[in-house]
């Protein structure tokens, strides 16, 4: 009994740390949605492509890990820019749902490009934090998970300051609330779209750099996996709510790790989707979203 309790706590700790990653993907989706009122299903592949681009300096020139980090971030920003150009910029006046199709197309395109380039072989990704867990009382803390949690906290604080305290953040909130007013006051919507893409892609690249370490080996399928996790998080958290995305990300992490430990690896995603399903049925507006009007 006591052992079970310890297990639950241990897996909750793991889940919270890992959930910080889900929260960050969810925040990325929320920022996209806030500024553009559209979904970017190519967000996962953007992150994945960033991580894979980060491998180039590592494998070619045995570059140090900070170079890999910078390449991940820069790579994701470049790919994000391509996604914005190809899937959004010229479709803005078109049908609302068009970007869903263009970004699904982009998701497949990026994923399959990486499959072809890497011959679908998994690539090893070094873990700078090593394998040794920290012992805190009866609990074990994986250093790479801890790094995700800490970086998540840092990003959330930085984003909070950016959104609440800067002219850029005010412009972002103005567009989210009423794009016509924002334009009237001098905000360029197309410029804000590009900046939002750059911001979320950089955030994705930086987080992806850490998450890739927890995988050990990379394979292109993580692209759609990340997109799906992001969508689950924003549905559970409530569309357009950053605090909602944070809570939902952490919750999803905890639920997944309990499932992983007590039910086995096959149940991890099943339980995550059950949670999604439960929210869609019982609370479609999510944890912190507003009820649909």
């Amino acid at each position: 009994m006591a052992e079970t309790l310890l297990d639950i706590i241990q897996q909750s700790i793991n889940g919270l740390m890992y959930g910080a990653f889900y929260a960050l993907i969810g925040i990325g989706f929320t920022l996209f949605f806030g500024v553009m009122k559209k979904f970017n299903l190519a967000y996962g592949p953007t992150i994945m492509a960033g991580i894979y681009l980060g491998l180039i300096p590592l494998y070619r020139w045995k570059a140090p890990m900070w170079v890999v980090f910078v390449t991940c971030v820069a790579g994701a920003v470049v790919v994000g820019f391509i996604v914005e150009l190809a899937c959004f910029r010229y479709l803005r006046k078109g049908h609302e749902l068009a970007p869903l199709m263009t970004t699904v197309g982009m998701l497949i395109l990026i994923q399959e490009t990486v499959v072809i380039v890497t011959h679908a072989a998994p690539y090893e990704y070094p873990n700078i934090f090593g394998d040794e867990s920290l012992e805190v009382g009866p609990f074990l803390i994986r250093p790479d998970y801890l790094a995700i949690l800490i970086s998540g906290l840092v990003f959330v604080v930085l984003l909070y300051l950016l959104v609440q305290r800067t002219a850029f953040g005010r412009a972002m909130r103005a567009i989210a609330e009423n794009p016509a007013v924002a334009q009237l006051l001098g905000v360029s919507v197309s410029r804000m779209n590009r900046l939002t893409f750059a911001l979320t892609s950089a955030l994705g690249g930086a987080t992806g750099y850490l998450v890739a370490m927890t995988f050990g080996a990379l394979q292109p399928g993580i692209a759609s996996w990340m997109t799906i996790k992001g969508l689950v998080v924003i549905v559970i958290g409530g569309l357009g709510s950053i605090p909602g995305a944070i809570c939902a990300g952490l919750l999803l992490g905890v639920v997944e790790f309990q499932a992983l430990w007590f039910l086995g690896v096959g149940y991890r995603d099943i339980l995550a989707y059950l949670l999604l399903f439960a929210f869609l049925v019982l609370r479609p507006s999510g944890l912190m979203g507003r009820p649909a009007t």
Partner: protein
Amino acid sequence: MLEVRDLEIRYGSVVAVDGISLDVKEGEIVCLIGPNGVGKTTTLLSIAGLVRPASGKIKFFERHLVHLRPEKIVRLGIGLVPEGRWILGEMTVHENLLMGAYSRKADRATIAGDIERVCETFPILRQRSGQLAGTLSGGEQQMLAIARALMARPRLLLMDEPSLGLAPLIIEEIFRVIKELHARGTTILLVEQNAHQALQIAHRAYVMEVGRIILSGPAAELREHALLKKAYLGVRARQPS
């Protein structure tokens, strides 16, 4: 200052504005009056760049505006106080004012000084500074919408029905402010259904009727115009006995 020529605006196949022309000279208060739904708001929105006309010209100090985006037009010195206020309800009053100055490349101190200045015109905004704008009363929201437009230091201020839905005392206050802004050198193009009060403060006026301008001239003359008296001013023209 502002020159509108043969402006035609369509929503789909519906002609909302059917070839109107009007001028605003520097230092004037010009009002555009007429009943609901004749295209007054559409005209203002197209000057501000939010609605693209089908044909016609809009010139501001010799600069063509028709193909410019709204964020460019505000930088040229045209501010719009939209109908229904359009304040940013989820931001504080202070943030709304800061957003008003978004288009300017000014340092913090200058902007803080300008906020101070508009708060002198509207003291209530200072009291409400940290409050979410959506929680303000209708009159306060209107004052915020005007103050926010002033934060861009416009040379020409377009005002769309600033008195709509407000209590008489607050309407008085709004018209007093319009006169004060004008006295300080802002040129104003005012759209109003409240023709009586608008004609009191305007220099010139245009009267719109289903997409066209049917009358124009000095406000003092229009105040005496029989048609207007009957239709908008609520004064019956005297019947010859």
